């Protein structure tokens, strides 16, 4: 079965990020296909390279980043710009001194969320 997920929750603020991560790894373990994970609303905070969680806690950023290196993890560009998540191109466009989007994620529009619902058999929302 083809799955896509939407994540609205920020990492650590609620359990939803962790639950979504476990769901994604479980579906892959069971042999399903992961078409896309779309990060919207506060979920865009997952893609920052600047977060430094305490060392005695699970590093959610690292876990998600690893998944993002192998699958299509998309950050909503409008939600990201609003919350200060930028790649170098957007930093230049808005004349910002720094950028923080992890290279493993792509920055795109809501069309990618809609496309995920069209392509997938199951679309699950977290947060």
């Amino acid at each position, binding site marked *: 079965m083809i799955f896509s997920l939407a994540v609205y929750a920020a990492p650590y603020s609620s359990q939803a990020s962790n639950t979504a991560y476990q769901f994604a790894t479980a579906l892959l373990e069971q042999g399903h296909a992961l078409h896309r994970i779309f990060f919207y609303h506060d979920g865009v905070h997952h893609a920052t390279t600047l977060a430094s969680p305490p060392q005695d806690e699970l590093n959610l950023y690292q876990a998600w980043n690893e998944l993002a290196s192998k699958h299509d993890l998309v950050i909503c560009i409008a939600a990201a710009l609003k919350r200060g998540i930028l790649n170098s191109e957007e930093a230049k466009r808005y004349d910002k001194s720094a950028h923080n989007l992890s290279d493993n994620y792509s920055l795109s529009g*809501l*069309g990618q*969320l*809609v496309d995920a*619902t*069209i392509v997938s058999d199951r*679309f699950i929302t977290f947060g």
Partner: protein
Amino acid sequence: MNKNLLIVSRQPPYGSSLPREALDVALAAAVYDQNIGILFMDDGVFQLLNKQNPDTISQKNIASTLSALPLYGIENIYVHKQSLESRNLTIEELALDEIKILSTEDVAQLLDQQDHLLSF
């Protein structure tokens, strides 16, 4: 391919940006020619009230955006009757004229007809 997508909006209008972001998803889905509908239930029904004055909290009136949805081809707009009743709201207080009022049984049937639910 066309799919039946239903946005289920259950949060009050200004406590978080989710209700507004749900509308952005609705508009995107309409652009992609999907069969998109929106259902307001639980505290989501507060988004529909016609007398909102969010200027005082530096917000845009969400009901005005909702009224514009039919212009973008989004005509399937639903509200859960019992959610209105349990909050002491009446249909006369809603900003949208052409909203479909659904009982709990109707909602169950509507959900059953969808390919995907988008929860907000």
